[in-house]
């Protein structure tokens, strides 16, 4: 497999990684950069467990060609909390018990992050649509939606 050097910003840090030219962004994040908070659930962009924020937009990293993010900013769940301080989205998910097995949680957090950075005053329907590409089999979504409504208030106050 042909290798290439990929330079991009991972959680605001510039990184330079040796990758396969046909690698998926998900594999680069997990196996090359070693950040395993981003999960693989389906491999076909349906479950959203691999969601990361690419240049401010949520994307399924299992169907993004890693080479295509040269020079761009990618944020994973590991980049949410700053110096030990949880992001309001993370705190709200804890406060609302909006997780169970937790496997889909990082993906939900990243979808919510992309939404609230763009629109800190979303309607309940806008929240639902923003996370409709993230499947969760445990929670029934109710506490997640409530958590993101709560987090939105924190984002508005910032």
């Amino acid at each position: 497999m042909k290798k290439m050097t990929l330079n991009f910003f991972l959680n605001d840090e510039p990184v330079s990684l040796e990758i396969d030219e046909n690698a998926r962004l998900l594999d680069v994040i997990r196996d090359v950069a070693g950040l395993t908070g981003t999960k693989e659930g389906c491999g076909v962009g349906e479950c959203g467990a691999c969601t990361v924020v690419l240049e401010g937009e949520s994307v399924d990293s299992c169907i993004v060609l890693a080479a295509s993010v040269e020079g761009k900013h990618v944020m994973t769940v590991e980049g949410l909390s700053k110096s030990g301080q949880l992001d309001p989205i993370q705190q709200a998910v804890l406060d609302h018990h909006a997780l169970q097995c937790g496997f889909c949680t990082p993906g939900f957090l990243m979808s919510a992050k992309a939404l609230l950075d763009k629109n800190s005053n979303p309607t309940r329907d806008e929240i639902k649509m923003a996370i409709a590409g993230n499947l969760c089999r445990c929670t029934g979504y109710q506490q997640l939606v409530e958590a993101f409504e709560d987090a939105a208030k924190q984002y508005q106050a910032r």
Partner: protein
Amino acid sequence: MPLLGEMKKNYRVLNQSKPRIDGVDKVTGRAHYAADLKFVDMVYGGCLRSGRSHAKVVKMDTSKAKSIPGVLAVVTADDMPKPKSCAGNAPYMYLTNEVKYAGDVVAIVCAETKPLVAEALAAIEVEYEDLPGVYTIRDAIKPGAPAVHPQYPDNVFTDSLYPIRKGDVEQGFAQADLIIEREYETQYIEHSYIEPEAVVCIQNPADGVMTVHSSSQNPFFTRRYVADVLGVGMNEVRVFQETLGGSFGGKEEGVGMVAARCAYLCRLVGRPVKMTFSREESFLESAKRHPFLLRYKAGVMKDGRIVAWEGTQIDNCGAYNNQTQFMNSRASIHSCGAYTIPNVKTDTYGVFTNNIHGGAMRGYSSPQLLWGQEQFIEEIAEELGMAPLEFRRINCLKDGTTNATGTVLDHVNIQEIMDYTTAKTDYQSKREAYKAQTSTKKRKGIGLAIAHRGCGLGAESPDASGAMAIANEDGSVLINTGLAENGQGLKTAFAQIAAEAIGVPYETIRFYGTDTQAIADSGMTVASRGTVMGAQSTRKVGFKLNEIMRANAVALGFFKDQAQVKGPEDIVLEDGFFHSVKQPETKVAFKDVCNASLWSGRQMAAYEWFMPPACIQDHHTGQGVAFPNYAYGCVVAEIEVDMETGYVDVQKVTASHDVGTAINPALVLGQIYGGILMGQGYAVTEEVEVSNGKVRNQNFENYIIPTAADMPEMDVNIFECDDDRGTFGAKSIGEPATEVVGAAIANAIYNATGKRIRENPANLERVLLGKKLR
């Protein structure tokens, strides 16, 4: 019976929505799931599946695969000393040359990288001879059908036959004013946990112990398969349950199979091996919810009393047996629903087919049965010209009545829950109004369903468990038990139970998870038993540690100034402080007693075993005590049907459940919300489509589970009661939360359309055309 909060339970740690023990790890991405692990020198394993439903391997050539540089091993059934697993009468195959379903594995490989594994699998050449197969329940029981297992020539899994014989059903039918018969059929559905199966194995080169890091619902269960395939003692296998990404009954045998194959490769190549399933492999090899063919016949009196009930409940086991007999035990016990009927005769049994296999899945037969029974009840009421609510009131279980097993019940609150829920939703008047709709575009519907559910394992198998509690010198406490966190919040609930029993703050307790070399097998974390029965030993050990530490406090002289304190019985430990009964304001810190205990060599740990009173049924009649007690629930679903497309829009679900004691109300809510969505998928969109054993949908693009956009408005009502047979009075909720939702939706569809859906699910085509399109 009161709603949550109305009943004063006086707990200090329970009845509170404490934060999850594993919450911070899970929101930061730190939590490690099995697929996240990486070890030095680690290599990868993979499985070659036949894709055939029934076939014989005629020839297999692995030489090309073996010659690829970086491929470390290729193993077939011929190479493996024990390719047949230890699982009972029709056991799974770790590897096989006789393919019985599309997920069977004919070879495994090990290679340096994941791409090399794929390359090696593609390079294995296999020649098959296809054999005639049998795929549906109806075909399997036809005379002369091909036999899936020679030991079951007519495909009936005789060991899974559970009869109920109560009263005299012939006499009941003879007296009945009206006799009604119906047939219902349910589908395969997939657990759809978001984490696919994953295992990493490492063998210690010195002592040979095989360590398995796995996504197991039940680590001890996984250990059994690994020891079996390796031919070693169970004490030579150590299974760590890594953070589990959902299971719902699905990561039992399936993960046992992966772990066994992975451990075999690990020992063969002498390096750590990781094996993970793709979503497609997970669909193919993990168990599904058993499809059931349900035939019911009821005899009723004009006044609404059901006097006779006969039923045949046949489930499709698929190619191998996966707990079918245990599940059918539960299915027989619940074979006439939450109703008291004097004469009952039902038979429940499984049949083998060349399909993916049915197995445990949240409900363990109840979602299927209730989906049929609760529609049948309404069909009977309609024939009688009686409102279904009134008909249920007449026949539902009450204190002093008996269910199918003849057990006399107490603490029965189902009618109260049903009356509360139907009043709150204005069920009666909506139902009447919706019945009169004539629109050809959109119609609303409201549906009701009720259930009772035996708590824990009951007579299925012993509901025993063991637990350990260790106090440390700083006053922190470790607890350990063989029960496992599956995402439901077990560690959190157990920590609350331990804190309550010991008398320390919740925050001082830690429960790190299951390691099979650190604690005894406590049975599986299944059957909604974790909190209800599995935590009994945790409660017991908590009380024991409380007693030990009170004795230490007195013996170490912490109360020497209080003359009235003669012994441990004169002091209490609560919220992390000791004080005497007479002088509560003088407090002694738990941590001070811990510290002094350590340095004076006193016991500060305990292990306790809990064995519940026996549940014994007569196997020929099913009569006897099947469960210590039952949980009761009622769901009302409100929907809108698009009469022109068949689209069912689930708009509101009101769910009311008797949980005995809500150990952690937020966790209870989470169980119920999640259960509602799973029930909605079951009733409306979900079906693993099999055609002659081949699985059409193997990933989430065409296996349709509800998204956040599909979430209905949910109104959850939590009831408590003073039945104290579960841990601190708790009853099951994980499975009750989902089991009756599908039935309520099915009844709502009938209310809207006037057409019964007797084959699940009510997808677009079935609702519009009344049948499956193909």
